[in-house]
């Protein structure tokens, strides 16, 4: 009988806690692999521009001469491709969502270390940078 089924649901809902969270007051439910936002460890970046070339929304801008790494938070779709392709693993995907933005073009710019001269790690990065110059 539908009547009794509804009663069951009603009673259950009466005696259980709300299914919703008071979101900004309480933190959202996150899992260890939740894609929240991208963050960079500036010391590890060798300005190889892999992330810039692979980014589907062109949110990342790497200046090799000025040694800066910039992300446009309004463009970023948090697909985590940049994290996958980064040769030095200096990009990480944080699980917390980014704060609410109020204006377009909210860009974060970081001065980075740039390519390491005598370090063997820099060798594959130099190869990766070649196609970009063509």
């Amino acid at each position, binding site marked *: 009988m539908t009547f009794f089924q509804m009663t069951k649901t009603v009673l259950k809902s009466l005696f259980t806690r709300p299914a919703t969270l008071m979101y900004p007051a309480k933190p959202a439910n996150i899992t260890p692999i939740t894609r929240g936002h991208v963050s960079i460890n500036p010391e590890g970046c060798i300005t190889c*521009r892999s992330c*810039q*070339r692979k980014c589907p929304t*062109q*949110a990342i*801008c*790497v*200046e090799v001469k000025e040694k800066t790494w*910039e992300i*446009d938070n309004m*463009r970023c779709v948090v697909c985590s491709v940049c994290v996958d392709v980064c040769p030095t693993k200096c990009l990480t995907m944080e699980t917390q969502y980014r704060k609410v933005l109020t204006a377009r*073009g909210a*860009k974060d710019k970081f001065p980075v270390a740039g390519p390491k001269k005598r370090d063997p790690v820099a060798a594959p990065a130099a190869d990766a940078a070649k196609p*970009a110059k*063509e």
Partner: protein
Amino acid sequence: MMEPQTILPIGVGDVVPKAEQAKRDGKRLVQIGCTKIGDDFEIIYVYDKDYQLTSYRITVKQADEIPSISSVYFGAFVYENEIHDLYGIHVTGINIDFKGTFYKTTIKHPFSVTIVKEDDSCQNK
């Protein structure tokens, strides 16, 4: 692996007869799609029966007129209006002709230009 597909090339004049034949065979219209290859436009008509696709391809220029199959398949008007609005190919005799107002785009016929991939410049320059 799915089964391979073949697309049969036909002339512009065969479009309506082929559609009529497909309807007699009990096929349904799956889609009409346009592709720009160089200066030519390929239009592919796809019919389906029992999950078997039958595809016909015509190759036209932008100034050409193609006949509408909406008298055979009523539902064809959405695809034909789309081709007209995005590629600028004129389709004659559509049953519900929006006359270029199906998609109201700022740039006229936006899909009729070919985008060349730029050398990964930053978005703000």
